[in-house]
């Protein structure tokens, strides 16, 4: 077990390193460089060349890579953003909490809708209403998220004027007393969370429905029913607890999907988080920021997969044997 765990950790570490190398290579494949992307009329060709020398961009690719990786791994130094003139670690430290606020809110809303809805679907299995909700889930899953965001902005911001269209704060945010400041942020959260958390909730509800139905077939549920417990108690106390574990693992640790969703949502709503930072860095060929963001997301995804794996082992004893997995 311990040996297996160590192997897994070592593999995860190698995977992160490989992912960083891949990101480095891909970022460098892109035409243009950060200096070429600077729009400064006073900067002539000689000045740009000087800047390239200063940033070390004129060095061989391998040397730049080793230098960056060495700094990142040995000193935790991710370098400086060539566009923002700030430390990459500062840029990331500012953006990550914002993305966490967005994704965590979306995750809460997602589960708060998906679980009760899934239970309801399981209890009303086969009814016209249940089929209609299932169809709605499929339709919502097929909507382009960025377009859904635009349409919500069109209706609730431009049309009704209820909610702000983009950003995380109003311009006068800093001047407000704190209750209004909180409310201001919450109002900015509503539309992005709806796109990120609500639109896909019906799809998850279909998984919850499936899991609940499977548990309802088991003997302990029959036993609970035989003891004359009300159906409400059987489902919420007995069945759901067992049904939910795989669902929460599935949703909670499906980090790539959640992070990817954040990239799309942040782009549409100009939410100043990781996704937006990464996309803007990509446009400006701001290599240190691209690599910092790629590295961070790779670490999160790989660690998430490792945790999911461990959770499955804790939940399902069958997965504990056979570390080689060639079966």
């Amino acid at each position: 077990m311990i040996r297996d765990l160590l192997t897994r950790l070592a593999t995860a570490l190698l995977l992160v390193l490989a992912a960083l190398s891949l990101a480095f290579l891909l970022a460098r494949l892109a035409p243009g460089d950060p200096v070429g992307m600077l729009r400064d009329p006073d900067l002539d060709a000689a000045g740009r060349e000087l800047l390239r020398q200063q940033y070390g961009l004129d060095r061989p690719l391998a040397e730049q890579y080793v230098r960056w990786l060495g700094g990142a791994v040995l000193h935790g130094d991710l370098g400086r953003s060539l566009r923002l003139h700030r430390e990459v670690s500062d840029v990331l430290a500012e953006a990550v909490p914002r993305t966490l606020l967005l994704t965590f809110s979306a995750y809460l809303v997602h589960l708060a809708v998906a679980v009760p809805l899934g239970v309801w679907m399981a209890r009303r299995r086969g009814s016209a209403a249940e089929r209609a909700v299932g169809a709605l889930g499929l339709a919502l899953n097929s909507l382009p998220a960025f377009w859904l965001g635009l349409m919500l902005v069109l209706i609730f911001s431009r049309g009704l004027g209820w909610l702000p269209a983009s950003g995380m704060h109003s311009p006068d945010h800093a001047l407000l007393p704190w209750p209004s400041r909180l409310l201001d942020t919450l109002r900015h959260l509503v539309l992005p969370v709806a796109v990120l958390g609500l639109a896909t909730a019906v799809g998850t509800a279909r998984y919850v429905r499936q899991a609940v139905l499977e548990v309802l077939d088991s003997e302990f549920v029959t036993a609970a029913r035989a003891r004359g417990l009300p159906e409400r108690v059987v489902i919420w106390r007995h069945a759901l607890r067992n049904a939910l574990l795989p669902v929460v693992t599935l949703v909670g640790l499906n980090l790539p999907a959640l992070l990817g969703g954040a990239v799309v949502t942040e782009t549409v709503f100009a939410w100043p988080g990781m996704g937006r930072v990464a996309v803007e860095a990509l446009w400006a060929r701001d290599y240190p920021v691209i690599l910092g963001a790629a590295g961070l997301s790779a670490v999160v995804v790989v660690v998430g997969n490792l945790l999911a794996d461990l959770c499955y082992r804790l939940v399902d004893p069958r997965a504990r044997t056979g570390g080689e997995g060639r079966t």
Partner: protein
Amino acid sequence: MNVVGRALLRDAGGRTGLVLILLPLLAVVLSGPLAPGDPLRVGTAAEQLLAPSRAHPLGTDALGRDVLGRLMLGGRASLAVGWSGVLGAVLIGTLVGLAAGLGPRRLDRALMALTDLFLAFPRVFLVLLLAAAAAPSLALVAAVIAATGWMGVARLVRAEALVLRERPFVVAARSLELPAWRLAARHVLPHVLPLVILAASLRVGGAILLESFLSYLGLGAQDPTVSWGAMIEHGQRHLADAWWLAAFPGLAIALTAIGHNLLGDALRDELDPRADGRYGSPGGDGA
């Protein structure tokens, strides 16, 4: 396949899906003769940003071009990129999966490590990195969809091949010392094919969504090529004064994706006996 076809027509979801796919296909094929005017022709100032009317059922855009005509033309790009992207992804995934499942153990390990590497990023991130690496075009988008969509198929095919390699008919074929490619192509592939077709059909919807997102970001179709995602991007600039510009292309994408997803679900009911009804395993991975 005849049996499957008939079963699809029996299933209400499958029927709806087929209609939703055939509709844009028909519109795309007929976009020449049917489109009201030339969708690429720039109109006069009086024709710009007209609300939907009898002359222009879906309105006109900022250059006075008919939105309905452009919608019919744009479907060509969305469908072609979605389908060819998924075809590429499934081809790569099948090859990798077969090689990993049937080949020597060392190859298996290397290929699965590669799969894990590609899965270590959120797909959107990988897509953006790749799409920024060359001049934007629709062919690039299709290639990117293929290059970032094969991992799930590879795992699926590998798992199936690992089971099949121990089956007596494969062991027998192996003992004849057939070349490896022949063993894979003639004896294993036919048994994996239904699974592969299923996986492909479940992924087209997601691929169409991904194409629209990339074109929306300006990484896909470039003027004068029309695509639904690019139309939404244009529409975003006029969200306040001309809602129809962004609304209708998105609706077209949604309906097409719904159609593909319905058809995929119906196909799964037929081909995958493990899945109970409409829910469960080898799902797609959308944008």
